[in-house]
């Protein structure tokens, strides 16, 4: 008996979480807490990350080889697990961004037509 997979975030479209995480990591290695805050702050708090759901997503990305992790010391002098982008992850980000833009354009067209 398997449960229906929960969306990465109640507020977010399915699959966008991965892309956002990858995008965040373009700026350099970061730990989960930073990633969550960067996403929230950058979106000016439009996108609320349910922080817990960040971690399964990070693990999934690591499984796919898009990010890699290592333990290190954070800016607050605490131990934390840092993630960084791999080459495959960069490629993936490019691909996902293109796909996303296509989707946005497509949806925009539909909405535009509907508005006429």
């Amino acid at each position, binding site marked *: 008996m398997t449960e229906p997979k929960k969306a990465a975030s109640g507020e977010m479209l399915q699959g966008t979480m991965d892309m956002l995480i990858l995008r965040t990591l373009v700026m350099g290695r970061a730990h989960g807490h930073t990633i969550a805050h960067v996403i929230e702050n950058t979106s000016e708090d439009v996108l609320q990350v349910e922080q*817990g759901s960040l*971690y*399964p997503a990070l693990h999934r990305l690591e499984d796919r080889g898009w990010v890699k992790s290592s333990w290190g010391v954070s800016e607050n002098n605490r131990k*934390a*697990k840092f993630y960084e982008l791999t080459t495959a992850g960069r490629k993936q980000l490019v691909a996902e961004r293109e796909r996303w833009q296509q989707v946005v354009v497509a949806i925009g067209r539909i909405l535009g037509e509907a508005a006429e």
Partner: protein
Amino acid sequence: MNLRRFFSRPAADAELAQELEAHLQHEVDHNIARGMSEEKARRQARLKLGSVRRVHETVWERNSLEWFETMLRDLRYAVRTLSRTPAFTVTAVLVMALGIGANVTLFTVVRSVLLKPLPFREPDRLIQLYEKSPDGRREYSYIAGGMYAAWKKAASSVEQMAIYGTDSINLSGSGGQLPEKLRYAKCSWDLLSMMGVVPEVGRLFVEADDRRAAPATVVLTHGLWMRRYAGDRGIVGKTILLDAKPYTVVGVLPAWFLYPDTQTQLWAPIYHEESSGMMEAVDNHNFFVIARLRRGATMAQALSQVDTAEKQVRAAHPTPSTASGASARTLLDGVVHDAKATLYTLMGATSCVLLIACLNVANLLVARSASRRKETSVRAALGGSRWRLLREQLTESAVLAGAGGALGMLFAWLGTRWLVEARPEMARANAIHMDGVVLLFGLGVVAGCGLLAGLIPSLSFLRGPLLEALQDSSRATSAGHGRVRLRRALLAAEVGLTVVLLTCAGLLLKSYNHLRSTDLGCATQNVLTMRFALPHARYDTAAKTAAFYEQLLPRLRALPGVKAAGVVTTLPGQGYGGDSRFTLPEHPDFAGGAVQDAIVRGADPGYFSALQIPLLSGRFFEDHERLTDARSVIVSKSFARQYFGDEDALGKHILIKDFDGVPPEGFEVVGVVGDTLWALTEQDTAMMYFPLYSGGWPNASIGVRSDGDVTSLALPIQKVLGELDPDLPVSDVLTMDQSIGRSTVDASFTSSMVMAFAVIALVLAAVGLYGVLSYIVTQRTSEIGIRIALGAQRGAVLRLILSDGLRPAWIGLLLGLVGSGFAVQLIRTMLYGTRALDWVLFAEVGMVLALVAGVACAIPAWRASRLDPMQALRTE
């Protein structure tokens, strides 16, 4: 998803916990920095993070392999259930192990002996050709030298055709080693190279060696080289004495080359060894022929070519001894044909045992699943899928089969080693070993057993409503009719298979006993035999040979403990020993004037009384009948009847052209003696005996009779021979019983093995019957209690239960007897002196089975009739 991550889940989980903890800390720091109190900061952080457990579960699930996990769970569950009933588990595992072990053993042997290609170069192109025996009784018989030459010219579909024959030869003592009588093979020069043999040392034969006039050459087998010459590579080029003649050793064969059998120790070129007369005769059958087919040619083509050649030769030489046809089979078949019937019979027997074992385990599982029927029903009602229930059942039987298989493979390993040791003379016994394919076969058998044993009990919950069981009240008088029916069917099958095994075993045993009790026609108790051959190089005249025998016999008879001694060229039961063509001057037109064939023997005057072969009329030979005075012949009873009919054989003459210095009027028949058999299974008993002292008989067997232990005479006799000729090896020092035992070892082995399997099957079937009936009685305890309480007679209860249990036995017996009728046809060729459809035996088997089934059923039935009704009614 991979297994590594699957197994490292706990570690990953711990790391995740750390990571989440770090996250919390950072969030708390963050909140405090924003001015919250520490307590509030912590609370907000937790709220923001959400359910930590949920994160853990999501990640854990992501890393798990569902199928693998359920399998492990099922496995654990099965092991736990099984270990709760150790008696059942141990029985089932042992039963399976026995069946699997026996099967894998037999498969190992069958594969190594019958299925694996011979170790020669491109063995699938090698075939063996035969002549059909002139009397048509033997499909695959010896070939005459002249026929081989004719075949070789005619057969264009074969690349090469080679001939060989086997014989024995005396290897003289050297360097302090005793003289030895060895088996050796003589072959055309190209035989060894045709088979792809590369010599270990030296060379093989070349065409120039293979002529009568060529210098004598010999190739040693690896075994002889190591044993006799300590692997000395310098042996090549040296001379050894064979039959007192010098032979140059030209090479040594590799260790793997053990053809035609492990006893053959030397090879020599055939055209050098045999007279040109022998190699040209078309009706003197002594040899074997092997051929290598051309690429793309078939055995059928080669056979039709040699068969045509054979028929042409026969048209040109129409003697009764010229065979009328040729036959062929693959070289592998030629090597293993004797082992084939035995091995396939045993394989059949072990398969039956395995099937019975599986049925029995299935039966036990049915009983178990019956007692768990309520549980399964409840689970099904709560939403457990049938597949899930089936999987559990299969896992359980798989665990049983797996454990049984592991133990069975061990049994098989031991069994294979035992078999090789018990039957070293079996064809290709040296090639028997377990390998990857055997292992695969074993795994296949295990899987098959697991499936069979698991699926049968599962049948009932694959179909039909599961919930019925819940409606059965706990006081139901007879539960699960379907299951009882299933178990009865299984039992009937078991009993049927057992009956088949028992009849086959019985028939084989009966033929073996028949064989053992066959009267050879001479004394067999307290008789010691040994053989020797006088080498022609030193015994080159008839006078020398005769003189040797004349000195030997009085000395043998003078030995203390010897009651009687005789010398004959071949003793009864020791083989065919050769035949000769003859004509009857008193019946010139007998059988259209054709030349006749009969077995010949040379016998000393005291031979017949020594071996207690009865004199029916006339007299034995006399001492003065020696050399050219040897003009008499003694014939066997069948010879007299066959060739002289009602006339008195005495005084008639037999003319033989093959012998040197024959009396022109022929040998006069002076006596008629009782028939003796040359082999236990052979019936041609027409024999002619000639005086040994004529001097023309270099091969001899000594037969010595004594009152008591005859084996203690072996050394004194060998000493006597050594005094007469220190360079004369003796062989086959055996009592007559041992010598007969040798020829029946095959029958003895097969029959006792099949019997052993049949007994195992019988025990399994009895256990099955007992188990099922006990179970039924337990199920019906309250019903029986009510019956008794209401006044049923105990005798009636006994009858009721007994008939219940015996019904499947009867059905099985009936089916088994019908099945046996077919099965015995398959082992027909292995039977001797026994009819395949032996009604007495069938009846005996039926009785044995009825008895065993009766006892197995009587115990639970008796127990049922003794039930205390009060107690029975109180049992739930």
